[in-house]
């Protein structure tokens, strides 16, 4: 299992030197449905999606169309009911839950729609956390976490806990936490939702920057202005991709 992950590391190296012709994300006929008592909600009804390494993709679509569900699939947080998903060449459905945890930790930076910060925990500790699970030494952790927080403009809020931060600041802590492991893929679910235009623009500049360094970026947004920054936009409606 470790071998599988190591192999993944090579294929998804952020600088892309080992990239193959095949797309880093390959989805074939992915479905996901939720049973609510007698009712079945089909959140995804057969998604075919290829995303190349280093691509910058925006996902748009009405509320409830399955954007967050799709992001969870890509980020190995959830598994599909049917269909095939290969991430960096690995069949994700064949991995154990711990293998998926390692992939999330090392290769994916997730910015959640609801931030998902730990309560009663300082910004610095929040951002250090993924590095702890990655086995990085404590001193190195603090240094890199500080750097990441400075990058999102929160260098002066290291000791603040979530309840002492504004919504936009919380969102930026969540972004710093996603960036700190230097993942090869960033998944951001409406990262500008809680930000004013100015801060939102700065964040978009940051994403442009990261993308130019080779990071794959997939971003859900409702704002056409934000989506314009991406290489391409995927439209989702009722769990299906529209062309």
């Amino acid at each position, binding site marked *: 299992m470790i071998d599988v992950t190591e192999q993944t590391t090579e294929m998804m190296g952020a600088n892309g030197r080992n990239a193959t012709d095949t797309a880093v994300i390959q989805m074939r006929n992915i479905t996901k449905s939720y049973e609510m008592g007698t009712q079945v909600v089909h959140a995804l009804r057969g998604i075919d999606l290829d995303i190349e390494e280093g691509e910058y993709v925006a996902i748009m679509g009405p509320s409830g169309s399955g954007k967050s569900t799709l992001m969870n699939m890509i980020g190995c*947080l959830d598994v599909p009911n049917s269909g095939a998903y290969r991430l960096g060449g690995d069949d994700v459905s064949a991995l154990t*839950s*711990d293998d998926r*945890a390692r992939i*999330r930790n090392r290769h994916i930076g997730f910015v959640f729609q609801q931030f998902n910060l730990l309560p*009663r925990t300082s910004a610095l500790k929040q951002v250090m*956390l*993924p590095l*702890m699970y*990655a086995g990085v030494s404590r001193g190195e952790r603090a240094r890199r976490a500080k750097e990441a927080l400075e990058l999102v403009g929160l260098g002066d809020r290291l000791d603040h806990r979530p309840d002492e931060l504004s919504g936009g600041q919380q969102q930026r802590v969540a972004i710093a936490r996603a960036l700190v492991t230097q993942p090869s893929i960033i998944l951001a679910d409406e990262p500008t939702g809680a930000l004013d235009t100015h801060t939102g623009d700065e964040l978009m500049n940051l994403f442009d920057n990261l993308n130019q360094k080779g990071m794959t970026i997939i971003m859900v947004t409702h704002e056409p202005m934000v989506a314009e920054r991406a290489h391409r936009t995927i439209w989702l409606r009722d769990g299906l991709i529209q062309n």
Partner: protein
Amino acid sequence: MNLSESLYTALDSILANKMRSVLTMLGVIIGVASVIALMAIGNGFSEDITGQISSIGSNLLTISTDMEASGGYPALSMADVAALSDPLNAPDITEVSATVQSNQTVVFGGEEKNTAVAGITENTLSMSSLDEFQLGDGLTQNDIDLQSRVAVLGAGIASDLYGSEYPIGTQIKINGVSYEVVGVLEESGGGLAGDTDDTVYIPITTAQSRLSTSRTRDGQKAVTFITAQAAGAEQVEAAIEQVTETLREQHNIAYGEDDDFGIFDQSSLLDTINTVTASLTAFLGAIAAIALVVGGIGIMNIMLVSVTERTREIGIRKAIGALRRDILLQFLLESMMLSLLGGFLGIILGWAISMAAGAAFDLTMVIAPETVLLSVSFAAGVGLIFGIYPAWRASNLRPIEALRYE
């Protein structure tokens, strides 16, 4: 993630939720404190009793008449004392004394008491470790040879009759006859044959001629019991055998017939009392163990609640890369640290309670190191056992469901 990181994370979480941590520990604190305090009482109690018994004098044999086997006659006399004192008969016995015991009315001035009067040989008191005098002296061999009317008082009866008056040299009346008081014993706080503090001691010869004039079957002046001192704890059994053989010969008891006397040794009494106090301690320990188990269940409850309450936190940790093992270890270490910490606080509390109770109720409190060790390991075990299930549940949460938990 290595163990020290898990420890650090668990500690972080304990400190971040002080109130919840204290509440979780409370059960274990109370459990361990009651183990320590109850065991201290139990141990102290048995130490007190054992101490009292051995202070009376160990390796003592008390021989008395078995009225049923002797046909209603007292069986023992001074001739038996002489026979037992002969090393040829009983080489493992170092000293023998005799006592004639009866209840009498004792009068001084206006005070009147019905109490035990013991006619004794010169060495009876010292053999029973009653050789400390508040006032005056004991009985001499001369007093016994001359059937003198002199008396030594136990501390209790002396203060009952005299109050603050000075007893030495005064006359008391026993059964209507005057005796001169020559000594008052120190308080001894008990005794095997009646309360030594409330006994009046007079020469055995005087008692035999004036108070209990009963005779043995062959017409000798009777004694109520004989006390024999075995040479050591290992010789007690041999001494019992020698006493039995000597007395059967003295009393002409045919082969196959029952002894007309009984022998009572303190080691068997000590054994009995040790059994009783051991079961008392075990009983107290069992109560305390129940308290600990209840404390453990409390930990499990709060840990389970805490797993539910922290479902989102677990989801977040898993989403950013925590393995099942990391979550399992974090929660397990958290519950073990809480119960161990609770254990240490419980020891301090239990110790404080023991000291306070010991001072307030004048009890001896003995905190045995084994008790402390036992309760700490019990506390750690409780944390482990009752922490496993909540930790296992936490580690098995699916990240996406945990994240969505409200």
